[in-house]
């Protein structure tokens, strides 16, 4: 059940009605049942996996909190992390490692392959679960007593399959001190759901057609402009796809009285790669910082160690996105750029300097660097990545792969993003006059009707992670 299907909106309507019309004691159960139903609408048997991880991590956290013995605490932590990473590793990376081992042994890549289907959202809920157990271990989070509450934290349907990765204290803060959303939150929630739907169907899915056509046969579409337009189409697709999903998740959570962290902040307006990672998939960046980069030593042990830590964090962050060397290269590419920026002292552009003469130059350069990174992310294999890069810089002029209206639409959204960055108009719509709110929502809905890709319901890109 995808967020961009009529079935999902029926489901959401039923959940909202059931939630608000039922007594207090039932509400968590209703949300949990709805979340499990949502999860099982994909492949029902994987609910067992989700339940198993929930039981393991719930028990591990209780065990860690109950005992004072460092050895027992560590054992419980290791059991929990092993379960999460073990299952994640098996489902997501087994075939990758099996293919590489087969390659090293000179055997066909499929020699040790298994037919494995990746459980929905496993990368997200395992990270969320691990962060909770680690926080309990660090004594930054009290263990959750009610197993229903914990199960809901892991499976809450708005963010179950593709984040944002919510910290336990944020979620339980909302759950235990729940307040019915006020009018601004309701309006903001509705607006975000509509905006997210428009981002997904109008922008992401339309540009996906271009990107998919280009990347399925890059050699068949040579040329500099062709390569750039194919890559930029993918850059537009992945941003609007993921941020659209996140907007819908945040909006739905708001309607239910929960507050999710912001996950995207106009990343293509970033003035550096460091700035980009402060704006792109922020909840993952935060997770990697708190549970990987800082435990590795962060920037506390000298320059070289800092670069190493940055590199390791980004390599693993890349691998988190998918079991392929291309993702590792993508992570390494960003790790390298972050290290270079740190070496050169280029940090985030301070807010007050954001709109200087140099800002557009820096933003364009950052955009180009990010697009180069997407080549590794999207290309079918490393060979294709190199071919595309070659075309982007040394190919003959070629032809634009984007249609005129798509180019116009992309430029229009860029203009909107710049205006939003400067004036935050959209953010103020929810508290603005009724006519402005109505006009914006109606235009977004009209754009879905007229420009939305509806030939088929395309799954969200991050569902596969």
């Amino acid at each position, binding site marked *: 059940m995808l967020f961009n299907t009529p079935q999902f909106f029926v489901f959401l309507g039923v959940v909202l009605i059931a939630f608000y019309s039922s007594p207090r004691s039932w509400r968590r159960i209703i949300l949990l049942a709805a979340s499990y139903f949502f999860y099982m609408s994909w492949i029902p048997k994987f609910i067992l996996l989700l339940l198993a991880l929930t039981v393991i991590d719930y028990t591990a956290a209780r065990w860690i909190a109950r005992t004072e013995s460092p050895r027992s605490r560590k054992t419980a932590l290791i059991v929990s992390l092993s379960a999460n990473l073990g299952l994640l590793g098996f489902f997501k990376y087994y075939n990758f490692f099996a293919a590489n081992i087969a390659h090293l042994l000179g055997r066909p890549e499929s020699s040790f392959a298994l037919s494995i289907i990746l459980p929905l959202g496993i990368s997200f809920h395992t990270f969320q679960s691990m962060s909770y157990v680690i926080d309990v271990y660090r004594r930054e989070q009290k263990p959750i007593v009610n197993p229903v509450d914990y199960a809901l934290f892991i499976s809450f349907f708005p963010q179950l399959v593709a984040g944002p990765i919510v910290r336990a204290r944020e979620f339980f803060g909302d759950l235990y001190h729940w307040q019915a959303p006020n009018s601004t939150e309701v309006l903001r929630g509705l607006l975000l759901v509509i905006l997210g739907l428009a981002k997904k169907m109008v922008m992401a899915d339309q540009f996906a057609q271009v990107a998919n056509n280009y990347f399925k046969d890059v050699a068949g579409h040579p040329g500099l402009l062709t390569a750039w337009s194919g890559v930029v189409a993918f850059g537009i697709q992945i941003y609007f796809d993921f941020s659209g999903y996140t907007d819908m998740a945040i909006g739905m959570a708001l309607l239910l009285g929960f507050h999710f962290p912001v996950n995207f902040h106009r990343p293509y307006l970033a003035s550096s790669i460091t700035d980009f990672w402060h704006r792109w998939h922020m909840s993952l960046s935060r997770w990697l910082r708190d549970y990987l980069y800082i435990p590795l030593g962060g920037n506390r042990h000298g320059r070289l160690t800092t670069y190493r830590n940055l590199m390791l964090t980004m390599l693993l962050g890349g691998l988190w996105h998918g079991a392929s060397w291309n993702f590792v290269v993508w992570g390494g590419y960003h790790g390298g750029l972050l290290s270079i920026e740190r070496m050169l002292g280029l940090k985030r552009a301070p807010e007050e300097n954001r709109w200087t003469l140099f800002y557009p130059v820096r933003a364009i350069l950052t955009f180009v660097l990010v697009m180069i990174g997407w080549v590794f992310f999207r290309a079918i294999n490393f060979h294709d990545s190199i071919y595309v890069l070659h075309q982007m810089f040394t190919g003959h002029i070629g032809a634009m792969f984007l249609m005129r209206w798509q180019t*116009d639409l992309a430029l229009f959204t860029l203009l909107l993003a710049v205006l939003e960055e400067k004036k935050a108009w959209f953010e103020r719509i929810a508290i603005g006059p009724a006519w402005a709110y109505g006009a914006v929502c109606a235009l977004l809905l009209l754009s879905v009707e007229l420009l939305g890709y509806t030939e088929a319901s395309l799954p969200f890109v991050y569902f596969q992670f």
Partner: protein
Amino acid sequence: MFEAYHVGQGPARPLRRYIGSLAENSIKVVPRILATLIFFVAFEGVIFHTRLYPSILEPESTAGAMEMQLKNEIKRPKPDRNQVLAVGHSRMALLPRVANDMQPATGYRFASVGLGGSTARCWYYELRELDPTARRYAAIVIPTDDFNEPDTYENPNDRELDTRYLISRLKLSDLTEYPWSFDDYRFKWVAFGDILFKGYVYKRDFLEFLSATKARIANVRLYNKYSTQWFYAYEGPDHSVAGLEIDWQHNVAHYPASFTPQQRKVIEDVLFQARPPDAGQLTRYLHHWYGRILDHYRGSGTKLIFLRVPRAPTPPPEQPPKLNSAIRQVAREPDVIVLDEHLFDPLERTDLFADPMHLTAEGMNRFSRILATEVRRVLGPPKS
């Protein structure tokens, strides 16, 4: 009950305060939701439920071609009621130009809104748009492929393409009838949504419009200016399937050497197509839509003239008549004239067929002359 609105373990608020906050929320939320609906309906209504967007439809698209045909026919001067209008699909071979050359003899002015791929359901809605008062025409000519109306594997009720033809002319008031004319609930639902949200149906056209706005506007202007002329000057195909021999008994065709494999395939697909046992599905469908056309013109004085189009390049074997076919049922109605079933049999010749379904230019000429003469005969002299 006082705690009903709390999900967590925090302190409960009194119901009064809850109701108060609900009321306060509603005051802000409801007008904004209403404003959203009003703006959406206004945008959708103004752009797609008026003639605004249909006026820039791609003229060669299904919806655009239908719209252009209707627009041209509405614009065509009709100084009197001695007008004969032909509806139909691509097999309706009337060339109005040829029939009108005989006007001094027949006294009637012929016009056509025949459009390839259109069906009886489309023809009803076309006629409703062209002749809302049912007072403009002396007669409406309606073609049928076969008086026995044998079923095909396609359920004509569930033909989604009809909505594409008719979208610019379907109204909100059609919500009570049009969607329900589909059998499958999925199609009913889709048709219902299509009438409500016409922008969704125009989506592909709209994207093409955005991609080449200037070219579209230029093309629309060109069609607005010349399409009537082009339509009425059409002469028909100049090639034929002469030399083709068909053995209807064994469903085998013998081709002259010049026929390409593609031509042969088309001929076999059309002439020897497998059919399911006749369950009367097409008859029920035609009975319904002929009935709607009949209802529209009932008591108006306009005659409905049904004819059988030339069937194939060589006469297919005669089948025993299906006495309860729709055409034979409506034949009993007042103001309905069913032309002789065999009227156009002389045209079932390979040299007069361009392909297995359509007549050549010469075939269309002869068809038009026969039809004009026959219409004059059945209608009698025109009213002055």
